[in-house]
């Protein structure tokens, strides 16, 4: 601690007198602020690096294996690594962006600077999605690049058909998981609860729904709630009619996806927004 600073260091300038001359903080700046918050803590950086790094590492290992065996890798094979790590880790960045305002109590500062709380939440949502897009696109590009490497190394032609559908639908699936995590975070406003809630929805329910899907009593209801199955059909491009089984009709699965999203994403997000707007920030 330095020695006492006396008031001499205060510039004796007149205080603001016309609030009308002060510009409103725009939504763009709010998003930029939230992007900065999402990346300027050690925990958030670690998660971002881990989600990208672990995926890339897995991809590189797969490439080495392929090159050694003189085989060519496929785009979906590489993207699968992005899915496995990113859809678990990337949503946690979104969770923390919301919940840390409560667990670290920075909400008292954030919502004093911007009292329109819904705007803050939407800025956080936009920032989470932007980060997710960047990570998903980087990993998509890495997948394409590594397929090319295996192609060059093995001398066999890779399957490049509809590569943009493969990468694009993968990005979409990542975004949906981020949105679901974000919605649960704004509902729970507590980091551990939101993370556990997210994994229950993503992993535990998926197992339960698989079992229920085999029971005759429940097998017709399950697809409407089985978000994991619906999102994986989207991410694999099946919903867009690519790499689908023969005689596949996507319309039923689109319906399932929409309903499951309403249940696991829209509903918690709406309830969460109401909670955030009404809550007392302490």
């Amino acid at each position, binding site marked *: 601690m330095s020695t006492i600073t006396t008031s001499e260091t205060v510039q004796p300038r007149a205080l603001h007198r016309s609030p009308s001359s*002060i510009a409103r903080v725009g939504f763009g700046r709010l998003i930029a602020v939230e992007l900065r918050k999402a990346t300027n803590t050690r925990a958030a950086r670690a998660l971002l690096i881990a989600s990208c790094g672990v995926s890339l590492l897995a991809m590189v290992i797969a490439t080495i294996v392929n090159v050694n065996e003189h085989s060519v890798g496929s785009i979906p094979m590489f993207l699968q690594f992005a899915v496995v790590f990113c859809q678990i880790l990337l949503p946690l960045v979104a969770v923390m962006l919301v919940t840390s305002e409560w667990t670290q109590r920075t909400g008292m500062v954030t919502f004093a600077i911007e009292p329109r709380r819904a705007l803050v939440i939407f800025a956080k949502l936009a920032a989470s999605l932007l980060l997710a897009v960047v990570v998903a696109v980087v990993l998509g590009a890495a997948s394409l690049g590594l397929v090319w490497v295996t192609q060059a190394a093995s001398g066999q032609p890779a399957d490049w058909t509809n590569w943009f559908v493969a990468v694009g639908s993968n990005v979409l699936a990542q975004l949906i998981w981020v949105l679901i995590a974000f919605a649960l975070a704004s509902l729970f406003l507590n980091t551990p609860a939101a993370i556990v809630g997210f994994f229950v929805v993503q992993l535990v329910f998926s197992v339960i729904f698989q079992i229920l899907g085999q029971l005759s009593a429940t097998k017709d209801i399950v697809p409407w709630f089985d978000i994991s199955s619906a999102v994986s059909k989207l991410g694999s491009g099946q919903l867009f009619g690519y790499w689908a089984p023969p005689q596949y009709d996507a319309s039923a699965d689109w319906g399932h996806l929409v309903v499951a999203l309403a249940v696991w994403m829209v509903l918690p997000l709406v309830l969460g927004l109401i909670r955030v707007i009404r809550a007392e920030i302490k």
Partner: protein
Amino acid sequence: MITLDHLTKRYGTYTAVNDVTFTAEPGRVTGFLGPNGAGKSTSMRIIVGLTPATSGSAKVNGTHYHDLTNPARVVGTLLDASAQHAGRSGREVLALGAFATGMPKSRVDELLNLVGLTEQESKRRVRNYSLGMRQRLGLAHALIGDPEILILDEPANGLDPAGIRWMRELLSHYASRGGTVLLSSHLLNEVELIADHIVMIGHGRIVAEGSPAQLGQSAESVVSSLDNERLGALLTAAGHKITGIRDGEITVVGQPVDIGRLALENQIVITGLRQAGGLEDTFLELTASTQRDASMNGVAA
């Protein structure tokens, strides 16, 4: 200017803030004084819209906080020095604040310098800050938007005596430039040092309001002499009501000048004469019924 008008906040049957009306004027430091749980923090949160009021209103410059164009440029707040992300450095906290309020980056160094945090300290994570350093950082953050109003909840908490003196100078300088300061404290001597105007609150209600001098005034004097018995009789005869006799001291209604004159006229040697109370007695007296634990809070305060 901050105006509270019949502000009330209820939680179920519990009334945290009860019909509070006062104005924090520009150009002076208004001290919000009261024991813990008196409703100071709740009132402050209501002013900045973090807590909804049950009834009544709280306005800054005649406007609801929510309706200010860029509130942090008008009102600087420090509601809890510990409410900062433990994983960010002090410098990053301020940089983020400057960015969020649209202030230039240069503001960060300006404020670090103002609150006496060194370059090195500013790079440490907030989790490693002492309470005093967090208060300095919090004050810097409150000032980041160059506001004309400051709302500070227990800002002197955790500061050493030199730090309190520093804060007094900073805030009185700020007020002398036309700024409005509303700060809270549960420590009387702190408020006495820093504030020009005191609003005393207990159990959610305003119990007294005025300058430290005004609140310190008492109608009673405490006198001791070599002949307390005769002095007591003379005082009673002269119409001064005696309210207590303890440890050789007489507490009596009346100003010291009158009592001294009476003793002089009757040739009684006075060994001690002072005005009863002062702010501390007023504070304890006024909040005695609302103290959570008189033996703990009251005496220690």
